[in-house]
Protein backbone atom coordinates (compact mmCIF):
# COMPACT_ATOMS: atom_id res chain seq x y z
CA UNK A 1 0.00 0.00 0.00
CA UNK A 2 1.50 3.38 -0.94
CA UNK A 3 1.78 6.17 1.57
CA UNK A 4 -1.01 8.37 0.28
CA UNK A 5 -3.41 5.47 0.40
CA UNK A 6 -2.31 4.58 3.89
CA UNK A 7 -2.80 8.14 5.09
CA UNK A 8 -6.26 8.19 3.61
CA UNK A 9 -7.34 5.01 5.36
CA UNK A 10 -5.87 6.32 8.60
CA UNK A 11 -7.85 9.54 8.23
CA UNK A 12 -10.96 7.57 7.56
CA UNK A 13 -10.45 5.51 10.71
CA UNK A 14 -9.78 8.60 12.78
CA UNK A 15 -12.88 10.36 11.47
CA UNK A 16 -14.89 7.22 12.15
CA UNK A 17 -13.80 7.10 15.76
CA UNK A 18 -14.48 10.81 16.17
CA UNK A 19 -17.96 10.27 14.84
CA UNK A 20 -18.48 7.52 17.41
CA UNK A 21 -17.17 9.79 20.16
CA UNK A 22 -19.47 12.60 19.12
CA UNK A 23 -22.51 10.33 18.99
CA UNK A 24 -21.61 8.92 22.40
CA UNK A 25 -21.37 12.46 23.77
CA UNK A 26 -24.78 13.27 22.30
CA UNK A 27 -26.40 10.19 23.86
CA UNK A 28 -24.82 10.89 27.25
CA UNK A 29 -25.94 14.49 27.07
CA UNK A 30 -29.52 13.32 26.51
CA UNK A 31 -29.24 11.31 29.72
CA UNK A 32 -27.43 13.79 31.96
CA UNK A 33 -28.90 17.05 30.58
CA UNK A 34 -25.95 19.06 31.89
CA UNK A 35 -24.15 21.82 30.11
CA UNK A 36 -20.71 20.90 31.32
CA UNK A 37 -20.23 17.27 30.31
CA UNK A 38 -16.68 17.11 31.69
CA UNK A 39 -18.19 16.87 35.18
CA UNK A 40 -19.93 13.62 34.30
CA UNK A 41 -17.63 10.70 35.23
CA UNK A 42 -18.79 8.45 32.38
CA UNK A 43 -18.02 11.05 29.77
CA UNK A 44 -14.64 11.75 31.34
CA UNK A 45 -13.92 8.01 31.21
CA UNK A 46 -14.94 7.72 27.55
CA UNK A 47 -12.78 10.68 26.59
CA UNK A 48 -9.82 9.29 28.49
CA UNK A 49 -10.17 5.96 26.67
CA UNK A 50 -10.28 7.68 23.30
CA UNK A 51 -7.20 9.70 24.17
CA UNK A 52 -5.35 6.60 25.35
CA UNK A 53 -6.01 4.68 22.17
CA UNK A 54 -5.41 7.56 19.81
CA UNK A 55 -1.68 6.92 19.76
CA UNK A 56 -1.84 3.18 19.28
CA UNK A 57 -4.54 3.57 16.65
CA UNK A 58 -1.87 4.82 14.23
CA UNK A 59 -0.20 1.43 14.44
CA UNK A 60 -3.48 -0.44 13.86
CA UNK A 61 -2.89 -2.63 16.87
CA UNK A 62 -5.48 -4.94 18.30
CA UNK A 63 -6.39 -2.71 21.19
CA UNK A 64 -7.55 0.00 18.82
CA UNK A 65 -10.02 -2.29 17.16
CA UNK A 66 -11.11 -3.43 20.57
CA UNK A 67 -11.58 0.09 21.87
CA UNK A 68 -13.50 1.16 18.81
CA UNK A 69 -15.66 -1.94 18.77
CA UNK A 70 -16.43 -1.40 22.43
CA UNK A 71 -17.31 2.25 21.89
CA UNK A 72 -19.63 1.31 19.05
CA UNK A 73 -21.27 -1.39 21.15
CA UNK A 74 -21.87 1.06 23.97
CA UNK A 75 -23.24 3.59 21.52
CA UNK A 76 -25.57 0.91 20.13
CA UNK A 77 -26.69 0.11 23.68
CA UNK A 78 -27.52 3.71 24.56
CA UNK A 79 -29.19 4.43 21.22
CA UNK A 80 -31.34 1.35 21.04
CA UNK A 81 -32.41 1.65 24.69
CA UNK A 82 -33.59 5.20 24.00
CA UNK A 83 -35.40 4.24 20.80
CA UNK A 84 -36.96 1.17 22.38
CA UNK A 85 -38.28 3.29 25.26
CA UNK A 86 -39.66 5.86 22.83
CA UNK A 87 -41.50 3.32 20.65
CA UNK A 88 -42.91 1.35 23.54
CA UNK A 89 -44.06 4.55 25.25
CA UNK A 90 -45.77 5.55 22.00
CA UNK A 91 -47.65 2.28 21.64
CA UNK A 92 -48.20 1.50 25.31
CA UNK A 93 -51.77 0.66 26.23
CA UNK A 94 -53.55 3.29 28.26
CA UNK A 95 -55.35 0.80 30.46
CA UNK A 96 -58.73 -0.79 29.87
CA UNK A 97 -61.16 0.98 27.57
CA UNK A 98 -64.49 2.14 28.90
CA UNK A 99 -67.63 0.38 27.71
CA UNK A 100 -68.62 3.46 25.78
CA UNK A 101 -65.36 3.80 23.85
CA UNK A 102 -65.25 0.09 23.03
CA UNK A 103 -68.79 0.36 21.70
CA UNK A 104 -67.67 3.36 19.69
CA UNK A 105 -64.94 1.36 17.96
CA UNK A 106 -67.51 -0.87 16.29
CA UNK A 107 -69.81 2.06 15.58
CA UNK A 108 -72.36 1.48 18.31
CA UNK A 109 -73.80 3.89 20.84
CA UNK A 110 -74.87 3.03 24.35
CA UNK A 111 -78.43 3.86 25.40
CA UNK A 112 -78.73 6.66 27.93
CA UNK A 113 -78.40 5.26 31.41
CA UNK A 114 -80.90 6.00 34.15
CA UNK A 115 -79.67 8.39 36.82
CA UNK A 116 -81.48 10.30 39.55
CA UNK A 117 -80.63 13.71 38.09
CA UNK A 118 -82.27 12.97 34.77
CA UNK A 119 -85.18 11.34 36.58
CA UNK A 120 -85.72 14.51 38.63
CA UNK A 121 -85.40 16.80 35.64
CA UNK A 122 -87.78 14.92 33.40
CA UNK A 123 -91.08 15.78 35.28
CA UNK A 124 -90.22 19.50 34.95
CA UNK A 125 -90.14 19.26 31.16
Amino acid sequence: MDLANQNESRDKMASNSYRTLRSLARELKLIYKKKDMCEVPVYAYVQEQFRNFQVTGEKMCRARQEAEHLAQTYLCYLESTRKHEAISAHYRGKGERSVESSANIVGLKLPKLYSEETAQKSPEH
Partner: protein
Amino acid sequence: MASTFKNIFQTCFILRNKVILQSAEKTKLKTISVYSNHCLSFTRCLHNPRELKKFYKNATVVSADGWFEINLDRKKLRTPHGNIFKVPSEPLALAIATEWNSQEKLVNRHTMHLTVLSNTALENPTHKTREQLTSNIIHFLETDTVCYRLNEPPELEKLQKTKWDPIIEWAVNRHGLEITPTYSMAPPIVSPESKEIVRRHLLSYSDWALFGYHYAVDCIKSLLIIMALVDKQIDVDTAVELARLEQEFQTKKWGSVEWYHDIELYELRCRLSAAMLFVHWCCESTTIKQKATLPSF
Protein backbone atom coordinates in the same frame (compact mmCIF):
# COMPACT_ATOMS: atom_id res chain seq x y z
CA MET B 1 -40.41 -9.49 65.65
CA ALA B 2 -38.95 -9.97 62.23
CA SER B 3 -41.32 -12.79 61.39
CA THR B 4 -44.42 -10.68 62.19
CA PHE B 5 -43.16 -7.97 59.90
CA LYS B 6 -42.45 -10.57 57.28
CA ASN B 7 -46.09 -11.68 57.59
CA ILE B 8 -47.33 -8.13 57.24
CA PHE B 9 -45.07 -7.68 54.29
CA GLN B 10 -46.39 -10.81 52.61
CA THR B 11 -50.05 -10.07 53.22
CA CYS B 12 -49.60 -6.51 52.03
CA PHE B 13 -47.90 -7.73 48.97
CA ILE B 14 -50.44 -10.42 48.14
CA LEU B 15 -53.52 -8.33 48.76
CA ARG B 16 -52.03 -5.10 47.42
CA ASN B 17 -54.76 -3.44 49.37
CA LYS B 18 -54.71 0.25 50.07
CA VAL B 19 -56.87 -0.25 53.18
CA ILE B 20 -54.18 -2.33 54.83
CA LEU B 21 -51.65 0.30 53.96
CA GLN B 22 -53.72 3.04 55.54
CA SER B 23 -54.54 1.05 58.64
CA ALA B 24 -50.92 0.17 59.27
CA GLU B 25 -49.35 2.70 61.57
CA LYS B 26 -46.76 4.95 60.08
CA THR B 27 -44.05 3.87 62.49
CA LYS B 28 -44.61 0.26 61.62
CA LEU B 29 -44.35 1.02 57.93
CA LYS B 30 -41.03 2.69 58.49
CA THR B 31 -39.68 -0.36 60.25
CA ILE B 32 -40.98 -2.56 57.48
CA SER B 33 -39.19 -0.53 54.86
CA VAL B 34 -35.97 -0.81 56.85
CA TYR B 35 -36.50 -4.53 57.26
CA SER B 36 -37.17 -5.18 53.61
CA ASN B 37 -34.17 -3.31 52.33
CA HIS B 38 -34.09 -5.42 49.19
CA CYS B 39 -37.06 -3.49 47.95
CA LEU B 40 -35.50 -0.06 47.89
CA SER B 41 -38.66 1.92 48.26
CA PHE B 42 -41.07 -0.48 49.76
CA THR B 43 -43.95 1.81 50.65
CA ARG B 44 -44.10 3.15 47.12
CA CYS B 45 -43.76 -0.33 45.76
CA LEU B 46 -46.88 -1.41 47.63
CA HIS B 47 -48.99 1.06 45.76
CA ASN B 48 -48.29 -0.68 42.48
CA PRO B 49 -45.65 -3.38 42.69
CA ARG B 50 -44.76 -2.97 39.05
CA GLU B 51 -43.92 0.68 39.29
CA LEU B 52 -41.02 2.13 41.20
CA LYS B 53 -40.82 5.89 41.29
CA LYS B 54 -37.41 7.46 40.90
CA PHE B 55 -36.54 8.07 44.55
CA TYR B 56 -32.98 9.33 44.10
CA LYS B 57 -31.36 12.17 42.23
CA ASN B 58 -27.97 10.93 41.35
CA ALA B 59 -26.30 7.53 40.97
CA THR B 60 -22.56 7.47 41.57
CA VAL B 61 -19.79 4.87 41.59
CA VAL B 62 -17.70 4.09 44.68
CA SER B 63 -14.85 1.62 44.85
CA ALA B 64 -14.38 -0.68 47.81
CA ASP B 65 -11.92 -3.61 48.17
CA GLY B 66 -11.21 -3.75 44.47
CA TRP B 67 -14.95 -3.91 43.66
CA PHE B 68 -17.17 -1.11 42.46
CA GLU B 69 -20.48 -0.27 44.12
CA ILE B 70 -23.31 2.03 43.11
CA ASN B 71 -24.64 4.73 45.42
CA LEU B 72 -28.10 6.14 44.87
CA ASP B 73 -27.74 9.53 46.56
CA ARG B 74 -26.42 8.23 49.88
CA LYS B 75 -27.92 4.77 49.93
CA LYS B 76 -26.11 1.76 48.58
CA LEU B 77 -27.76 -0.09 45.75
CA ARG B 78 -28.69 -3.62 46.77
CA THR B 79 -29.41 -6.82 44.90
CA PRO B 80 -32.88 -8.45 45.01
CA HIS B 81 -31.67 -10.68 47.88
CA GLY B 82 -30.55 -7.67 49.92
CA ASN B 83 -26.80 -8.00 49.47
CA ILE B 84 -24.70 -5.03 48.51
CA PHE B 85 -24.53 -4.65 44.74
CA LYS B 86 -20.95 -4.73 43.45
CA VAL B 87 -19.21 -5.35 40.13
CA PRO B 88 -15.59 -6.20 39.33
CA SER B 89 -14.89 -3.59 36.66
CA GLU B 90 -14.94 0.21 36.65
CA PRO B 91 -16.39 0.84 33.18
CA LEU B 92 -19.17 -1.64 33.96
CA ALA B 93 -19.98 0.24 37.16
CA LEU B 94 -19.96 3.55 35.28
CA ALA B 95 -22.31 2.15 32.65
CA ILE B 96 -24.65 0.83 35.36
CA ALA B 97 -24.65 4.22 37.11
CA THR B 98 -25.55 5.79 33.76
CA GLU B 99 -28.36 3.27 33.43
CA TRP B 100 -29.79 4.40 36.79
CA ASN B 101 -29.25 8.04 35.93
CA SER B 102 -31.08 7.68 32.63
CA GLN B 103 -34.36 6.78 34.37
CA GLU B 104 -36.82 9.62 34.37
CA LYS B 105 -39.90 9.53 36.58
CA LEU B 106 -40.20 5.79 37.03
CA VAL B 107 -37.45 3.22 37.36
CA ASN B 108 -37.95 0.75 34.53
CA ARG B 109 -36.03 -2.19 35.84
CA HIS B 110 -36.80 -4.33 32.80
CA THR B 111 -34.76 -2.04 30.54
CA MET B 112 -31.66 -2.06 32.78
CA HIS B 113 -29.96 -5.05 31.24
CA LEU B 114 -26.51 -4.46 32.72
CA THR B 115 -27.97 -4.24 36.23
CA VAL B 116 -30.00 -7.39 35.65
CA LEU B 117 -26.96 -9.28 34.33
CA SER B 118 -24.81 -8.21 37.27
CA ASN B 119 -27.54 -9.26 39.70
CA THR B 120 -27.71 -12.67 38.05
CA ALA B 121 -23.96 -13.10 38.15
CA LEU B 122 -23.73 -11.91 41.77
CA GLU B 123 -26.44 -14.13 43.21
CA ASN B 124 -26.77 -16.92 40.69
CA PRO B 125 -30.46 -17.43 41.48
CA THR B 126 -30.72 -20.67 39.50
CA HIS B 127 -27.61 -22.16 41.19
CA LYS B 128 -25.80 -23.04 37.99
CA THR B 129 -22.25 -24.30 37.99
CA ARG B 130 -19.71 -23.41 35.31
CA GLU B 131 -20.16 -26.81 33.70
CA GLN B 132 -23.94 -26.47 33.57
CA LEU B 133 -23.66 -23.02 32.06
CA THR B 134 -21.25 -24.14 29.36
CA SER B 135 -23.31 -27.20 28.47
CA ASN B 136 -26.40 -24.98 28.28
CA ILE B 137 -24.56 -22.70 25.87
CA ILE B 138 -23.26 -25.59 23.77
CA HIS B 139 -26.80 -26.89 23.54
CA PHE B 140 -27.53 -23.92 21.27
CA LEU B 141 -24.82 -25.05 18.86
CA GLU B 142 -26.79 -28.22 18.12
CA THR B 143 -29.70 -26.15 16.83
CA ASP B 144 -27.87 -23.04 15.70
CA THR B 145 -29.93 -20.45 13.78
CA VAL B 146 -27.36 -20.14 10.99
CA CYS B 147 -27.48 -23.91 10.36
CA TYR B 148 -31.19 -24.12 9.60
CA ARG B 149 -31.59 -23.25 5.91
CA LEU B 150 -34.58 -22.95 3.65
CA ASN B 151 -34.84 -24.03 0.01
CA GLU B 152 -37.54 -21.67 -1.00
CA PRO B 153 -38.12 -18.97 -1.95
CA PRO B 154 -34.85 -19.06 -3.91
CA GLU B 155 -34.04 -15.43 -3.05
CA LEU B 156 -34.10 -16.30 0.64
CA GLU B 157 -31.92 -19.34 0.05
CA LYS B 158 -29.40 -17.14 -1.73
CA LEU B 159 -29.57 -14.51 0.99
CA GLN B 160 -28.96 -17.08 3.71
CA LYS B 161 -26.00 -18.44 1.78
CA THR B 162 -24.36 -15.06 1.26
CA LYS B 163 -24.98 -13.83 4.81
CA TRP B 164 -24.61 -16.95 6.94
CA ASP B 165 -21.86 -18.87 5.13
CA PRO B 166 -19.10 -16.39 6.10
CA ILE B 167 -19.94 -16.95 9.78
CA ILE B 168 -19.62 -20.72 9.46
CA GLU B 169 -16.46 -20.31 7.40
CA TRP B 170 -15.01 -18.08 10.08
CA ALA B 171 -15.82 -20.65 12.79
CA VAL B 172 -14.23 -23.41 10.72
CA ASN B 173 -11.04 -21.42 10.12
CA ARG B 174 -10.71 -19.84 13.54
CA HIS B 175 -11.72 -22.71 15.83
CA GLY B 176 -11.59 -25.71 13.51
CA LEU B 177 -15.23 -26.62 14.04
CA GLU B 178 -16.96 -29.21 11.88
CA ILE B 179 -20.54 -28.24 11.29
CA THR B 180 -22.87 -28.88 8.37
CA PRO B 181 -26.07 -26.86 7.85
CA THR B 182 -29.33 -28.68 7.35
CA TYR B 183 -32.15 -28.14 4.86
CA SER B 184 -34.65 -30.43 6.54
CA MET B 185 -36.19 -31.08 9.94
CA ALA B 186 -33.14 -33.07 11.02
CA PRO B 187 -30.73 -31.12 13.20
CA PRO B 188 -27.42 -29.98 11.68
CA ILE B 189 -24.46 -32.30 12.04
CA VAL B 190 -21.99 -31.22 14.71
CA SER B 191 -19.02 -33.45 15.45
CA PRO B 192 -18.30 -34.29 19.13
CA GLU B 193 -14.79 -32.86 18.69
CA SER B 194 -16.28 -29.48 17.76
CA LYS B 195 -18.36 -29.50 20.94
CA GLU B 196 -15.24 -30.25 22.95
CA ILE B 197 -13.38 -27.36 21.26
CA VAL B 198 -16.22 -24.98 22.09
CA ARG B 199 -16.40 -26.29 25.66
CA ARG B 200 -12.69 -25.64 26.20
CA HIS B 201 -13.01 -22.21 24.64
CA LEU B 202 -15.95 -21.30 26.88
CA LEU B 203 -14.28 -22.55 30.04
CA SER B 204 -11.49 -20.02 29.47
CA TYR B 205 -13.96 -17.26 30.33
CA SER B 206 -14.61 -16.03 33.87
CA ASP B 207 -17.86 -16.92 35.68
CA TRP B 208 -19.28 -13.46 35.17
CA ALA B 209 -18.46 -13.46 31.46
CA LEU B 210 -20.16 -16.85 31.08
CA PHE B 211 -23.43 -15.42 32.41
CA GLY B 212 -23.18 -12.67 29.80
CA TYR B 213 -22.36 -15.21 27.11
CA HIS B 214 -25.37 -17.32 28.05
CA TYR B 215 -27.64 -14.27 28.00
CA ALA B 216 -26.38 -13.26 24.56
CA VAL B 217 -26.76 -16.73 23.05
CA ASP B 218 -30.21 -17.09 24.57
CA CYS B 219 -31.27 -13.79 22.97
CA ILE B 220 -30.57 -14.69 19.39
CA LYS B 221 -30.40 -18.51 19.61
CA SER B 222 -27.11 -18.79 17.78
CA LEU B 223 -23.74 -19.61 19.29
CA LEU B 224 -21.75 -19.10 16.08
CA ILE B 225 -22.91 -15.50 15.62
CA ILE B 226 -22.10 -14.70 19.25
CA MET B 227 -18.64 -16.26 18.93
CA ALA B 228 -17.93 -14.06 15.90
CA LEU B 229 -19.31 -11.05 17.76
CA VAL B 230 -17.21 -11.63 20.89
CA ASP B 231 -14.19 -12.04 18.61
CA LYS B 232 -15.06 -8.60 17.13
CA GLN B 233 -15.50 -9.93 13.60
CA ILE B 234 -18.94 -8.34 13.29
CA ASP B 235 -20.76 -5.60 15.19
CA VAL B 236 -24.00 -5.79 17.15
CA ASP B 237 -26.20 -4.43 14.36
CA THR B 238 -24.92 -7.06 11.94
CA ALA B 239 -25.36 -9.81 14.52
CA VAL B 240 -28.99 -8.86 15.08
CA GLU B 241 -29.55 -8.60 11.33
CA LEU B 242 -28.11 -12.09 10.82
CA ALA B 243 -30.26 -13.53 13.57
CA ARG B 244 -33.48 -12.09 12.13
CA LEU B 245 -32.56 -12.69 8.51
CA GLU B 246 -35.74 -14.48 7.51
CA GLN B 247 -37.96 -12.03 9.36
CA GLU B 248 -36.23 -9.13 7.69
CA PHE B 249 -36.66 -10.78 4.31
CA GLN B 250 -40.38 -11.23 4.96
CA THR B 251 -40.93 -7.71 6.31
CA LYS B 252 -39.28 -6.29 3.21
CA LYS B 253 -41.82 -8.17 1.16
CA TRP B 254 -44.95 -7.81 3.29
CA GLY B 255 -44.26 -4.64 5.27
CA SER B 256 -42.98 -4.01 8.73
CA VAL B 257 -45.18 -3.30 11.74
CA GLU B 258 -43.56 -0.72 13.98
CA TRP B 259 -45.13 -1.83 17.24
CA TYR B 260 -43.94 -5.37 16.72
CA HIS B 261 -40.91 -5.58 14.42
CA ASP B 262 -39.16 -2.37 15.39
CA ILE B 263 -39.70 -2.90 19.10
CA GLU B 264 -38.28 -6.40 18.76
CA LEU B 265 -35.31 -5.14 16.75
CA TYR B 266 -34.37 -2.48 19.29
CA GLU B 267 -34.92 -4.80 22.21
CA LEU B 268 -32.63 -7.42 20.68
CA ARG B 269 -30.00 -4.78 20.01
CA CYS B 270 -30.25 -3.56 23.62
CA ARG B 271 -29.95 -7.02 25.09
CA LEU B 272 -27.17 -8.12 22.81
CA SER B 273 -25.04 -5.00 23.21
CA ALA B 274 -25.52 -5.12 26.99
CA ALA B 275 -24.39 -8.75 27.04
CA MET B 276 -21.39 -7.96 24.84
CA LEU B 277 -20.29 -5.08 27.05
CA PHE B 278 -20.75 -7.29 30.08
CA VAL B 279 -18.63 -10.10 28.60
CA HIS B 280 -15.92 -7.71 27.51
CA TRP B 281 -15.62 -5.85 30.79
CA CYS B 282 -15.73 -9.00 32.86
CA CYS B 283 -13.00 -10.67 30.77
CA GLU B 284 -10.87 -7.56 30.86
CA SER B 285 -10.87 -7.41 34.63
CA THR B 286 -9.78 -11.04 34.94
CA THR B 287 -6.82 -10.53 32.63
CA ILE B 288 -5.72 -7.54 34.67
CA LYS B 289 -5.91 -9.60 37.84
CA GLN B 290 -3.85 -12.38 36.30
CA LYS B 291 -1.10 -9.95 35.38
CA ALA B 292 -1.01 -8.57 38.89
CA THR B 293 -0.56 -12.00 40.46
CA LEU B 294 2.32 -13.11 38.20
CA PRO B 295 5.32 -14.06 40.32
CA SER B 296 8.45 -12.00 39.67
CA PHE B 297 11.40 -13.94 38.32
